[in-house]
């Protein structure tokens, strides 16, 4: 598995652990999570767990169910935060 697949797999694991109503499969990464049983309370728990698992803080503008309502959207946001963080670390090293 490459880095993106690893991140996606971890997101799926976290979402499924918090969404008791349905197990979300890899083929469903672009489907709206609210349609797959995620409610506002699940959403809060998912965000808290994602931040803890990846050691990051999701910026204010993304903390909305509509902004992170698919696995793919979550993946893209987390990758972009990790990339910014990696690039800052690189600059510090230089």
């Amino acid at each position, binding site marked *: 598995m490459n880095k993106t697949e690893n991140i996606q797999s971890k997101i799926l694991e976290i979402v499924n652990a918090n969404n008791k109503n349905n197990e979300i499969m890899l083929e469903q990464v672009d489907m709206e999570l609210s349609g797959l049983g995620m409610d*506002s309370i699940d959403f809060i728990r998912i965000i808290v767990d994602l*931040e803890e698992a990846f050691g990051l803080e999701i910026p204010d503008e993304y903390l909305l169910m509509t902004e992170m309502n698919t696995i793919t959207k979550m993946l893209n946001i987390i990758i972009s935060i990790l990339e910014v963080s990696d690039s800052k670390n690189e600059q510090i090293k230089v």
Partner: protein
Amino acid sequence: MMEHIKKDIALLNIEQYMQLRPVLSQIISPYAVIKGEALSLLCYNKKSVRRSQDIDVLIERNNLSIIEKVLINNGFEVLSKSSKTINRENRIIYLSQSHQIEPYIKETKNHYVQIDLNFDIFWGEYTSKRVDMNEFLSDTIEMEIYGAKVKSLPPLKAMIQLILHHFKDMNSIYLLSTRKSIKFDMFKDVYYLLKNNYEAISLDKLYTISEKYEIIPYVYYILYYTGMLFDDDLLKKYVTAFQTHEGEELLNCYGLNESERRKWKCDFKTRLESESTYDLIKEFLTDKDKEKIEINRKVFLGE
């Protein structure tokens, strides 16, 4: 006794705007002081008709952290109702479930001054198209309140903000369960805002902007109930123009989203006069509703 309370509130209001003045002068991004005295001036052409213990400022979500820094630099700090430290989980709940963040307060010689930063005119779980706050704040008007020059919403935008705010208050199961959130004064504000700003909030203008923001059923909902309390031919025209099937469907329901939406088992008069709307809905709450109310109580009320 009443005179004493009025004087104390007036002193608090003066103090609030005195403390707000340097904060606003340092905010370079778009903002509007909403509700409270700003709305009182628009609705009634005079201050202090609406009682408020805090000042609400509407900003764009992306500018939150910059404006929070301005508040901190001016001696304000977060009033965390749920724990002594600023809790990340609380922040996530405020940002995803609410339209504002935890209040900022500043202790002065005689008062606590509280500022609420609002970053949206919709409720947190709203899933349809949101309104771009930069656009919404693009035509603010200037007004002077207790010696402070502040930017506020023009009457038309103030009406949109007020309608969505009232719809949220009348439909949130959390608010219905924790306070009297259907009050006569809410409709009085809507009525006088319309009546005293008839040209700025003409039927054409209100309809056009409501259509653009895709909120016609919510506008109908609030105007319909305002019309039940204020018999006015002008208002009747608005109610008729905004009538849609979707709006009609909302009238006798509560709940901010499809999964929470239920039919009221009592009429509007009973809801309006009830001291405890919780008593009217408690037997219909699901376990999920109760869990959500419990979480919100902890975060927003510190219970």
